[in-house]
């Protein structure tokens, strides 16, 4: 698995470098108070943050687009590597830049911005949201790949199981009602739940990946 | 062992191998006890499938021209001059028969064919 991950990192090193550099650019801009847009209060304050955020996501998007168009999963599935390892390498590679950007952005924001207090649980919550997003994209890709190589009966089964999965996950929301104790441990605990959801969804997406009936994409 | 095989002949590859190996054994360029290349070696060097060589070797073995020793491969057999002669006769018969039949079908008489063959032989001798 690490061999695959290393190859991905090395292959995308320039994109990753840009993603690393962007929050630092942001910190620099904030530090020296360069104004990109003057006059509008909101943009004066957040222009750097917005630009850097969008920029980073653009690079992450390019990397995933490339991964998909070069049929990386198919290439890896043909090598003597268990499919589980491919799923894990894909997940780690997807999660890392997201996590990095978010953590660095939040910390810089909190160090240099107006919020003084470092609220770590917020980072977790936002990370969780991102994980959910990533897992969702992966699931969609996997399901799409299933659809293109399935007869109707199996396709129906897959849709059914995904439906059940969503209902199951939604039931976690019930916990929110039952968590006064939980709230005492983590302030605004429901935000933290996103992290858990993210992990669950990522695991689910890995499971679906391993059970894929095709590795042609 | 070098064979000259072609896809452009009507003769199938298998028969080409049989004919050429047979000629080598009968002419003595392969002596009794000389080893032949293994089936896979010959297939690879001549760019033909293993099954083709295998069938050809089997046919040659049936003719008594080569024999196999377990784990050692194939070897040319010793052929005495009587057998050689018999084989040559058989081969001539096989070749000439359809030609004569063809000539008869085209309206030549036995007599005419006989004269023709005699003249041919004379010119070859001379």
């Amino acid at each position: 698995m690490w061999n695959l991950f290393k190859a991905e990192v090395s292959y995308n090193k320039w994109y990753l470098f840009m993603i690393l550099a962007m929050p630092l650019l942001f910190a620099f801009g904030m530090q020296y108070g360069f104004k990109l847009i003057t006059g509008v209060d909101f943009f004066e304050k957040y222009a750097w943050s917005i630009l850097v955020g969008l920029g980073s996501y653009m690079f992450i998007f390019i990397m995933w687009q490339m991964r998909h168009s070069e049929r990386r999963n198919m290439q890896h599935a043909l090598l003597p590597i268990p499919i589980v390892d491919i799923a894990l390498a894909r997940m780690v590679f997807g999660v890392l830049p997201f996590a990095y950007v978010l953590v660095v952005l939040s910390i810089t924001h909190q160090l240099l911005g107006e919020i003084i207090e470092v609220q770590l649980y917020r980072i977790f919550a936002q990370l969780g949201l991102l994980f959910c997003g990533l897992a969702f994209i992966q699931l969609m890709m996997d399901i799409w790949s299933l659809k293109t190589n399935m007869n109707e009966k199996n396709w129906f089964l897959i849709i059914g199981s995904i439906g059940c999965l969503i209902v199951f996950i939604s039931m976690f929301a019930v916990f929110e009602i039952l968590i006064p104790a939980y709230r005492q441990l983590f302030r605004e605990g429901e935000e933290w739940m996103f992290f858990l959801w993210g992990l669950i969804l990522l695991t689910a997406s890995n499971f679906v990946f391993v059970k894929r009936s095709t590795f042609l994409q | 062992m070098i064979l000259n095989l072609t896809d452009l002949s009507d003769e199938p590859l298998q028969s080409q191998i049989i004919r050429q190996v047979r000629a080598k054994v009968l002419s003595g360029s392969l002596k009794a006890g000389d080893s032949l290349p293994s089936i896979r070696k010959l297939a690879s060097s001549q760019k033909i499938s293993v099954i083709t060589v295998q069938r050809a070797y089997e046919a040659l073995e049936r003719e008594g021209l080569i024999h196999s020793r377990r784990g050692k491969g194939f070897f040319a057999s010793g052929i005495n001059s009587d057998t050689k002669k018999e084989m040559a006769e058989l081969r001539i018969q096989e070749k000439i028969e359809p030609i004569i039949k063809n000539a008869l079908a085209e309206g030549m008489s036995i007599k005419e064919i006989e004269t023709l063959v005699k003249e041919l032989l004379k010119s070859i001798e001379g």
Partner: protein
Amino acid sequence: MEDAIQFEKMIKEFSGFKLGPLNFTLEPGKVLGYIGPNGSGKTTTMQCLTGLLRPESGYVKIFGEVNDPNETGWKSKIGYVGDKHVFYENWSCARNLKFVSQFYPSWSDKRAEDLIKRFDLDANKEVAKLSKGNRAKLSLIQALAHDPQLLILDEPMDGLDPVIRSEFTNVLFEVIENEERAIFYSTHITSEIGRLCDELAFLDNGSLKLKTEKETLLEKWRTISFQSTNHDLKLPGVVEQKVSGNEFIIKTQDFESTLTALRELSISDITETRLSIEDIAIHILKGGRNVESL
């Protein structure tokens, strides 16, 4: 010894297309030519074989092991050249080979270099800049350099020039010198594999029409011409018949029995010629639909 490939009642279905049930084996030491027109299911068979697709029912075993994509044993025994050549596009050929090499214990850098030389490939070139033929070459090198026990080739000659084709065929003949190696070779161009294959399998519209030894096929199929005043001949094995006056030209898929039948009808003056694999393939794949009369 275990079969190199064993298809057991394998079925793969898409909406509107069904492949199988496939039931056949390939023994080590043999080359099997998998012949069929475009869209007959050749590539799908290859993809089921390499674990890229999961069959709906039945299974495939490779050297006795079911081809579960989560198991690595069987994967390291095969070399596959598919219809799509996938690489890290912005890396050089050499870099791509280096990446792949780390997953195969039996990989030989020396062999890879030798193949690069023989196929005349510029290893320092970026994959994205390679022509179609050169991509195929890189795929072949990648499939051959770990000395696989089973080579699975899906129309591997596509885009190669004649010189490289001939060099590639030479390499395949070298591979099969080792009697533990097997080659599964799919193509729609039969001349490509006429000399190489020991066995031939014919696939049409998702089902296997015939699998047999090449020499048997060549011996059984003949074109026979003869004369007969009787126009109502019932001959066994005939797949095509042309009549003009008293002259007959027939194609048979069972020479022995057709000949016996002709002799029983005391028809002599028979001339016979063999058919090429290409001719035979056309007849098998058309399914004997063309018994015609002139």
